[in-house]
């Protein structure tokens, strides 16, 4: 095992897949000569050259669309969006072309593209740069959506995403890029659609994705230390496909669920999970399913206020205590 950052884990996944498959190419703004706005692709252009790592102009609609077209003929483009926030400019391509081409062509056409970049709030960059569109994209049948919380997950999931035959929307987090985790030296992949039980417990299930999974882990520690409550933490890792079995398993074990996400609540990912629990775990529940999300307003700039806009471990603790 090596202790590496989330950023390095992504970079290793990219380098390994570029070496493994000559069809893998990286395209995006500032990914080559500049080493990436967030340095995820640092050194890759120097190592693999212009044919594998290419800078594009600020033309999200065109370069994402171009990646989609290229994927139809067998390239495996890994497109970097400097921020997922800029996907709004490329929405038509992502939804109508990447999302639907296989279906509309009666299954004839593959679209093995990965679109990756950070999707998070919490960094005081204001509403236009803090989008968390995992729920919006997961709403499109045809797209897969992944939100890794750790370096280990980021690497294994990115490798699977690149090998996947469907378009995968891969959402990272600028607050995690510099954080370190243990990652095996030897090769591994993590299949899409498999949640990870990050902490075992008996009294309540905290279900989360992305950085919220880490918030849940901190909350679980507080609950154990200060309130003698044993919380189980399930990290969804993929939003679509969704690991329904894992969700039902943990709730059938603890009989209580608190859902946490950094996304906005309205039509959020956790609305989907609540509905799943209502339909399939109603009789297993000892308490109503509760949710904690970002406060339902665009991201505010004001640093002192934005910290309170996203769920904090203490918010989770308070929510859990309300169940007992």
């Amino acid at each position, binding site marked *: 095992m090596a202790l590496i950052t989330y950023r390095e884990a992504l970079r290793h996944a990219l380098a390994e897949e570029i070496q493994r498959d000559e069809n893998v190419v990286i395209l995006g703004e500032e990914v080559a000569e500049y080493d990436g706005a967030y340095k995820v692709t640092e050194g890759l252009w120097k190592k693999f050259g212009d044919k594998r790592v290419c800078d594009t*102009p*600020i033309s999200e609609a065109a370069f994402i669309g171009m990646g989609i077209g290229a994927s139809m003929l067998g390239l495996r483009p890994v497109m970097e969006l400097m921020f997922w926030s800029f996907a709004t400019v490329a929405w038509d391509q992502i939804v109508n072309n990447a999302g639907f081409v296989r279906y509309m062509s009666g299954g004839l056409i593959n679209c093995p593209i990965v679109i990756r970049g950070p999707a998070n709030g919490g960094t005081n*960059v204001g*509403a236009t740069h803090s989008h968390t569109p995992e729920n919006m994209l997961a709403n499109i049948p045809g797209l897969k959506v992944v939100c890794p919380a750790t370096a280990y997950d980021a690497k294994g999931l990115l490798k699977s995403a690149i090998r996947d035959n469907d378009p995968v929307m891969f959402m990272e987090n600028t607050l995690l890029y510099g954080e370190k985790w243990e990652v095996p030296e030897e090769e591994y992949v993590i299949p899409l659609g498999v949640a990870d039980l990050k902490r075992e417990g008996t009294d309540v299930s905290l279900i989360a994705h992305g950085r919220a999974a880490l918030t849940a882990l901190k909350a679980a520690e507080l609950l154990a230390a200060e309130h003698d409550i044993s919380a189980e933490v399930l990290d969804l890792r993929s939003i679509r496909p969704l690991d329904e079995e894992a969700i039902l398993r943990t709730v059938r074990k603890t009989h209580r669920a608190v859902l946490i996400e950094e996304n906005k609540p309205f039509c959020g990912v956790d609305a989907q999970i609540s509905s799943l629990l209502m339909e399939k775990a109603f009789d297993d529940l000892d308490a109503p399913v509760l949710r904690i999300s970002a406060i339902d*307003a665009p991201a*505010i700039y004001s640093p002192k206020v934005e910290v309170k806009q996203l769920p904090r471990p203490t918010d989770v603790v308070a929510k859990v205590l309300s169940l007992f």
Partner: protein
Amino acid sequence: MGTDLFPPPLPTRDHALVLLRQMLLIRHFEERCAELYTQQKIRGFLHLYTGEEAVAVGVMQALDPRDAVVSTYREHGHALARGIAPGAIMAEMFGRREGCSGGRGGSMHLFDAATRFYGGGAIVGGGLPVAVGLALADRMQGRPQVSCCFFGEGAAAEGEFHESMNLAQLWRLPVLFVCENNLYAMGSALSITESSADFTRKASGYGMAAGAVDGMDVLAVENSARAAVQAIRAGNGPFLLEARTYRFRAHSMFDPELYRSREEVEHWREHGPLITLTRRLREAGLFAEEDFQALTREVEAEVEQAVAFAEAGTWEPVEDLCRFVYSEVERA
């Protein structure tokens, strides 16, 4: 409109000092912002306008207070030249309620209805269609105004640039498009992002009148902008003005600037807007060293007042966070 070929006429001394003062104010404001960023008083992203002052200051001279302005995330200079109070801009960057956007927007999202300043927009290219719409409303509601849209040359790679150019020209809307060509979009030199780097020709492709101007010469910028605005107000349709300029500082506060040489930056600094104007005025006998020092002292004091105003500001209570997500007025 090859204004570059003819040196612009000399201004009166009073007018020259107005231009100089505004540029100096922007220069000092931005340098102070850089310090405040390292002290973590200002957070998030910070894009400074240092070096490009002549563009905002020159163009604003040509607008009247009822004209609308749209800018980018590198908009402190536009906001100051437009007349938004420095304290309100600084307080915005401190995230205080007294900021021009209530502390909600930050450096990249300054707004001010009183000066018809419609942002402050951090999505590259996103302001152009809005400027076209402001022009449409002015025309439909019978106001003889011009909408002025500032954007970086990098935005010309976005579809929104092209769609806006076409629409504005097709409907002959009163828009002044000001392309601030500072040669780099983040770390990308023009040559690796644009198949043709002649922005006036892009306008011509849409049948739009266009001209280029030395963006380091505030007198030339003012002159060109006045001519363009006059033509637009006369009903000749939109105009694209390319201002050739340079940013002296990094793209943002996280940019090691490996894509350009120190010599290149030095060269441009020596041809900067403050040097260009003061040299011209000195040669014409309109200006003395004491003027420069007096103005510098004035703007320094103004910037410090802005900082003090920001420091004294208050935080929005978190309970108010959902206010103004939607209108608080039932109907028009």
